[in-house]
């Protein structure tokens, strides 16, 4: 007897359709799986057999061959357990082949017959359309995000067999996704003082400028960075789907089990490997931190401590907004359009911003600075020096401006920038502002690239103020928002 069941497997953030063919014939009892299965798929034999027996289904003492088509493509993950089991039910005649017509199956089996979560349900649901999809009950809501009504959940293999035989109805569809509850994001009101740090966050959020904060330990770099995502506008529906798809493929849990509606905030530790940052793995190609941060914020604390290779790998995503991960088995392109926020100490002892307080040798300082390559440093439009807040301000208990208030200005500035036609050559500068930039260029304080970056930042500052022309003071502010470069460029 032969059965063919539709399913899908995950590669990168995309699903690929897979047809699971099960053949049961006379011969020595045995169970083989062919079609380039990975270790997890090969282990399905033991899980499926145990699940059959635990669910009170009879295990055929015959020769079972399972083929995963197309045979030339590698398949991974335990999500193919369920289609193999259903294929067996059909091939042994336990279930009528007609009842599986127009349905696809994805799910992992437990030894007790229960159905378990598989990562990447959104991509799998896409890949199996337009068939109806049967998934573990816990994944039904995630699959329904892209598929709507034709998703069925099942709690275990026994129940599913009864449904397919027509002895029971499909279980109640899971409740529709709740309206997203107000996400808990840290608020900027918690930050005391730090006028420059706050302003840098606002400008970074409004103009999508990458930000590097340089300051001694205890100056609030991490606290500020964690509040950047809260200043960004909510995700658009397209962005939300992309972000959710990536998180789903990476096996991350979704907020309230529904679509992301707030920009994600990712803060990998400084010992992160290149693969964990940019994505990869043998051939299932899991998205990395840069992709998980897409449309959101990637925060690299202690930038100087990251492996140099990991930092240099950031250059492509920073430039193109995507990351291409190539392996022998093929190339996958992940979205990676994130806002980069980084923090570092000015020198190994951390006191370098205070004149005369640093105890590092000149050599140690130079070595620390060399860890950040000039091309990477050039990607940061904003490089701000931070100092420890004033004790009076810290203890005053007067809360700073809240994230909500700043986010309103950010949204207005973004709308303003979006409505403006792209100028032919640079932003519209007031004459004295233009003269200021010219004098900085001539004195060598700014490079040509630096000039471009400063005028971009000044443009954002003017957008935040709701002004068409960029004034002298706005250019001066843009200049001071990259003054920290002096601490890392010797």
């Amino acid at each position, binding site marked *: 007897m032969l059965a063919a069941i539709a399913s899908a497997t995950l590669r990168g953030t995309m699903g690929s359709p897979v047809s699971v063919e099960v053949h049961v014939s006379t011969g020595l009892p045995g169970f083989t799986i062919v079609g380039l299965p990975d270790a997890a798929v090969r282990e399905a034999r033991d899980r499926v057999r145990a699940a059959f027996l635990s669910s009170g289904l009879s295990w055929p003492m015959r020769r079972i061959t399972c083929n995963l088509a197309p045979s030339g493509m590698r398949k991974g993950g335990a999500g193919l357990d369920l289609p193999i089991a259903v294929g067996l039910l059909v091939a042994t005649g336990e279930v009528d082949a007609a009842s599986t017509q127009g349905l696809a199956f994805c799910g992992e089996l437990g030894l007790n017959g229960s159905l378990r979560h598989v990562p990447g349900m959104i991509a799998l649901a896409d890949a199996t359309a337009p068939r109806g999809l049967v998934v573990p009950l816990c994944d039904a809501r995630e699959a329904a995000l892209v598929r709507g009504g034709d998703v069925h959940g099942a709690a275990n293999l026994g129940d599913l067999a009864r449904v397919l035989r027509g002895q029971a109805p499909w279980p109640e569809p899971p409740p529709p996704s709740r309206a997203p509850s107000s996400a808990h994001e840290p608020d900027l009101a918690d930050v005391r*003082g*730090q*006028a*420059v*740090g706050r*302003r840098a966050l606002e400008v970074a959020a409004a103009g999508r400028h990458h930000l590097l904060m340089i300051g001694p330990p205890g100056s609030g770099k991490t606290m500020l960075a964690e509040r950047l995502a809260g200043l960004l506008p909510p995700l658009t529906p397209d962005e939300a789907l992309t972000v959710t798809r990536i998180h789903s493929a990476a096996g991350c849990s979704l907020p309230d089990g529904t679509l992301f509606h707030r920009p994600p905030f990712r803060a990998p530790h400084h010992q992160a490997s290149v693969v964990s940052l940019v994505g990869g793995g043998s051939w299932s190609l899991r998205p990395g931190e840069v992709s998980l941060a897409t449309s959101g914020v990637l925060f690299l604390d202690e930038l100087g401590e990251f492996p140099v290779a990991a930092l240099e790998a950031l250059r492509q995503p920073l430039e193109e907004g995507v990351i291409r991960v190539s392996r022998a088995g093929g190339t996958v392109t992940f979205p990676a359009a994130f806002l980069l926020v980084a923090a570092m100490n000015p020198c190994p002892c951390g006191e370098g*911003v205070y*004149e*005369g*307080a*640093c*105890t*590092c*040798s*000149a050599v140690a*300082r130079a070595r620390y600075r060399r860890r950040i390559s000039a091309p990477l440093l050039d990607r940061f439009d904003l490089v*701000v*020096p*931070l*100092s420890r*807040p*004033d004790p009076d*301000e810290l203890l005053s208990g007067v809360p700073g401006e809240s994230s909500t208030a700043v986010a309103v200005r950010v949204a207005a500035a973004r709308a303003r920038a979006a409505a403006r036609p792209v100028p032919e050559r640079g932003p519209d500068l007031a004459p004295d502002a233009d003269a*200021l930039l010219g*004098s900085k260029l001539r004195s060598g304080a700014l490079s040509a690239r630096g000039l471009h970056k400063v005028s971009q930042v000044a443009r954002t*500052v003017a957008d935040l*103020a709701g002004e068409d022309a960029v*004034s*002298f*003071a*706005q250019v*001066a*502010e843009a*200049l*001071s928002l990259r*003054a*920290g*470069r*002096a*601490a890392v460029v010797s």
Partner: protein
Amino acid sequence: MTLPEEAYAVALASVPSIGPSTLRDLLADDAPSAAWSRTVGASGSVRHVARIWERHTELGIGVLMAGHPSWPARLLDDPGAPAIVFCLGDPRALDRAPTVALVGTRSPTRYGIGVAAQLGADLAAAGVSVVSGLALGIDGAAHEGACGAGAPPIGVVAGGLDDPYPRRHTRLWERVAEHGVVVSESPAGVRTEKWRFPVRNRLLAALSDVVVVVESRHHGGSRHTVDAAMARGIAVGAVPGSIRSATSEGTNALLADGAFPVCCAGDILVALSLAGAPAPAPSPSVHGARPQRPAPVTGEDRRVYDALSPDPTSLDELARLTGLDLPSLCGALERLARAGQAVDTGGWWQRE
């Protein structure tokens, strides 16, 4: 082939296991050629000596030997004088004028750099040779100031004269050799090892009439120079600094211990008993006698100017003090900078 006696002395100094004091003991009784054959014996071929000698002459490195007429007078009765000194430039510069050592930390503040450069320039203009170690920080700043005009500068370095150290000071090193002289106890080809710095500091003190520490940490390397100077009865001065600055801990402690305070080049000239000599123009930044630029009058600029101090202040602090928003504050600061009334040091601002 006949080689001068100096060639044997240079070859002896180039033997890795022979340091300055061993060399002095060796050459105390014997002529260099005799000492060479006695210590190195038959294995030390004349060709080896010739090769080392050739290398020094090719590089233009001069050799001064104790007991020769060219030996600097300052080292004649020094208790710890070396037996041999290598030099680039004119060795007569060592005895031409009164000498003052300007030394200090390798990671100074802007204040220290400014003071060192000013003292260097004023002393050179007053006809005093500035002696320093050509290290990063204070030493380099002092020589930068002193290389302009006036008395010849003297650089005292630890390693071989063929390999400028630190590399960043290669150009300064050449300028000092051009206007004055760079001396070392190490023959060409010797790497700058750690133990050579305190040894160098002893020679530096020996060549100076007065030692002035511009900025120094509590346990800074300047301490070696000061100790060597005190052992020789050489006057030691120190530039007072902020009690809050770690880079002034050493100098302030020296003042407490009895070093004479140095607030301008004139204070050093007094110590040299040269007070009657043609005095240099009073150094403005050191004396506070700078012609005052008129303070700005317009509202915001005035507020920002009043909030600034001679010490670097962060933008956050300025925003708090003035109550201005960042664009207004930054605009005012840029205007003050253009008028020469404020200066930006990597995001920190101070009054100029």
